[in-house]
């Protein structure tokens, strides 16, 4: 996170080159907080401000798609963690004066982001053994 015009702003930087990579969907929703990246950097997740709410947001850099995770009105998102393979998301919320962690399954929403050389298990009929 870096300060831009006094507001915490998500910055994605490639290592080790230091090249800053532009994100499509985070602009205008500062302050950002709690950045999280999948294995190859395909998915970038963070909390953003939308109106009065803090909303978990995931940008798919491969397709340009944006995924929001709306939370019930009685919960405020505080922090998130995206699993490196992008199969799950954990969100810390404040609810009734207490912190809770809630986990979400992203399998129906995102393609997994696996490290290079890791095969996806399974397959349909006729798949090689």
């Amino acid at each position: 996170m870096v300060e831009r015009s006094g507001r915490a702003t998500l910055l994605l930087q490639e290592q080790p080159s230091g090249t800053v990579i532009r994100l499509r969907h985070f602009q205008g929703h500062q302050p950002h907080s709690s950045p999280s990246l999948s294995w190859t950097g395909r998915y970038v997740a963070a909390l953003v401000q939308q109106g009065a709410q803090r909303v978990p947001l995931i940008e798919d850099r491969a397709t340009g798609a944006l995924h929001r995770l709306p939370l019930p009105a009685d919960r405020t998102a505080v922090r998130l963690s995206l699993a490196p393979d992008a199969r799950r998301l954990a969100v810390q919320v404040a609810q009734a004066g207490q912190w809770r962690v809630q986990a979400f399954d992203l399998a129906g929403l995102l393609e997994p982001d696996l490290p290079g050389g890791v095969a996806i298990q399974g397959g349909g009929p006729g798949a090689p053994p």
Partner: protein
Amino acid sequence: MKRLVCATLLGGLLSGCMGSMPLPIGPLNRQLESLGANRDPSLSGRWLALISGKGGREQVMLVDLELQQPLPLPGLNRADAQPLSVSVDGAGDRIALVRQLEGRTELVLYRRSLQSLQPIAMVPSGVPRQVQLQADGRQMAVQVSRGGLWQVDLVQIP
């Protein structure tokens, strides 16, 4: 029968409009709820590390998401330490922890397979606040306070 067909059509239309949504993992969330207040989640592979507290005392927990059970972490939690930030690698072996102990804030690396705890020095000196381990456990990003400024250090792990 007519009512059933209408309900099915309506359901199909609604799901088509709303698209796929992240699904809460019900049994796991109930398990987490039973642990008390929880914060600072870190997901990697089949593991979820977090800071969990009951009765005012917080400790690091590691949950196996496939078994949906917390695992023992011998030698990591201390009654006189306050955990601040935690992160786990994809193998569930390395856990990086920022904690306050005896008035100091320190970064330590725990190896579950060895039950060992190794302090990681900040160079140049600074006060760590948050940590995030890379999934392969080879590197971590540490948010550090130095001279009133927040900085992020990338630390290689041997």
